[in-house]
């Protein structure tokens, strides 16, 4: 299997879906002539033309709103938000629009929109450009929230997101674009709402997703050298949340650590830990630990920023506490 980056995987998924289905269009800031600020759509404008690759003004409300409307009217738009931090300017369209329209009108309308949003910290962009607010979006029934951590899943899940008739928030991590992994040639789809065992182990379960999958894998290697086998569950989707593999794993390892990049309070870890206590309480030999971001707006200074973000050492420390 060829090894490609997550950037290439996402780009391929978009390209192939646009070739496959003329209803698929892209709109967003700098997606066309510029080629995408993360170079995901480079070459698209020349190949597919300005009708299908639409540069928009810097106006997130109408970017997502127009994508919702076009989706209702039968297209399959992919709206790109340059960063997930700008999604807050479109929050009403995501929450009161995309997530509600199918239900609120008694199932008459469908909103097959994909909102691609780039999130994550670690690039010294300061407090307003570095957030990992994934859990916020996962709060709303009606929306599907996907956040892949490998090129394989990025490509397969984006294709699924484009093909489903439901609205999908597709969250990418800004520091993962160069991450490489094997991706099969040709068309394939990964199911939304299905978690995946990314590493097998018997001693402790790490439940994670997106960028933190990479850190968890690094932590697992170090633990293996110490004779501790960590099993890694990649949630991949936050809504619908598939707890099956995590619960099955905890029944085997009896210990769990949830690793996320977002803030601890009201976060993914809080949800997962709560579900584990509901569904696997009798199997737990230690309280579920959470590794998450310090409860501060992210600062600019590199050292301070890294201090606030979860590190491999934080994962190792949490694992040792539950063992």
């Amino acid at each position, binding site marked *: 299997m060829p090894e490609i980056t997550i950037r290439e995987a996402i780009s391929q998924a978009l390209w192939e879906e646009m070739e496959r289905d003329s209803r698929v269009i892209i709109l967003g800031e700098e997606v066309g002539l510029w080629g995408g600020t993360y170079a995901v759509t480079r070459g698209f404008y020349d190949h597919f033309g300005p009708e299908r690759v639409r540069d928009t003004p810097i106006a997130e*409300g*109408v970017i997502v*709103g127009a994508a919702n*409307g*076009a989706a209702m009217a039968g297209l399959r738009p992919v709206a790109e938000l340059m960063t997930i931090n700008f999604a807050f300017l479109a929050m009403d*369209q995501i929450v009161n629009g995309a997530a509600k329209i199918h*239900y*609120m009108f*008694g199932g*008459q309308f469908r909103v097959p929109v994909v909102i691609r949003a780039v999130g994550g910290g670690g690039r010294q962009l300061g407090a307003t450009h570095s957030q990992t607010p994934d859990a916020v979006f996962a709060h709303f029934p009606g929306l599907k929230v996907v956040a892949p951590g490998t090129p394989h899943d990025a490509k397969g899940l984006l294709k699924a997101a484009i093909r489903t008739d439901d609205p999908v928030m597709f969250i990418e991590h800004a520091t993962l674009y160069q991450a490489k992994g094997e991706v099969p040639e040709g068309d394939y789809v990964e199911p939304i709402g299905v978690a995946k065992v990314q590493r097998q182990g018997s001693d402790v379960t790490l439940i994670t997703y997106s960028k933190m999958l990479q850190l968890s894998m690094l932590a697992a290697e170090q633990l293996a050298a110490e004779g501790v086998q960590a099993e890694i569950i990649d949630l991949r989707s936050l809504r619908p949340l598939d707890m099956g593999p995590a619960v099955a794993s905890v029944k085997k390892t009896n210990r769990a650590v949830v690793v996320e990049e977002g803030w601890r309070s009201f976060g993914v870890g809080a949800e997962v830990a709560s579900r584990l206590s509901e569904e696997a309480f009798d199997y737990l030999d230690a309280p579920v630990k959470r590794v998450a971001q310090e409860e501060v707006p992210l600062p600019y200074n590199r050292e301070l920023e890294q201090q606030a973000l979860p590190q491999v050492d934080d994962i190792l420390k949490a694992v040792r506490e539950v063992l």
Partner: protein
Amino acid sequence: MAQVDVAIKALDEKEMLRLYHEMVLVRRLEEEAARLYQQGKIGGFLHLYIGQEAVSSGVISVRLPKDRVLTAYRDHGVAIACGIEAKVVMAELLGKSTGAAKGKGGSMHLADIHKNFWGGYAIVGGHLPLAVGMAMADQYRGDDAVTICMFGDGATNIGYFHESLNLSMVWKLPVLWICENNKYGMGTSIERSSAVLEMRQKAEGYGMPNSSVNGMDVLAVRAATQEALGTVRESGTPFFLEIVTYRYRGHSMGDPERYRDSEEIERMRKDDPIALFRSQLIAEGQFDTETLDEENARVDKEIQAAIEFAESSPDPVPADLYTDIYTES
């Protein structure tokens, strides 16, 4: 008036009577809805359109079936004009499974995809971006449909309005923006909330062609809309039509109306759109009082049947709580 006379002559009798019937139907439906609300049979908010009936009936009467319609939460008149039956509207108000949104939407979220009515929306200005996207989809496919997007004067002060008008011009989209200026955003008058008093001035800022019409005169609304739709269809670019109207009732039920005096309402009631249309029809000599009264009686029967239908319809079942969250599980 000369223009209106021409408009009346151009209308056939059947269409005139249909328009009259529709406006009275909307009025009576809402009067009954207010009564049912007081009885506790309708919950939530109830935003009455009373006084504005000439707007929805005038506008929708000249759209083509392929033209999409969206509006805000004061949507009963638009829903009826788009062709949703009174009984289906009433059933939705009562939260019944036979309602327009199966009882899940309520007064503010009427819609019927088969009537090309894409909904009432309850977030002020929130549906304007949807109209941009729908028009974009039609343009992309080469359909020459127009998306008619109606909203109140209150929506012109929100960011969505400006983002949407701007983008509709940049992308040259076939949208007919219709501002129903009823002078108040909830209880705040346009004098206290808008930098300009003519809403169409805001379209000027985007280089958008625009016009304004008296919204109490259904024939004038009809003529202005027809012209505006023609402009959009010919040019393929948006048009802004301001329709100046007035709401006789409160913003919603239970509005204490401390923001305006009763003299103002009484003065505006002299322009009642239904009374005006009635007098126009009689003055033209094609209809007498008796014929129009018969029409009123027909409306009353229809409303009674609508109420009976709604009251006897089943509520949604508990399992319906979980349907239509997603299109697939």
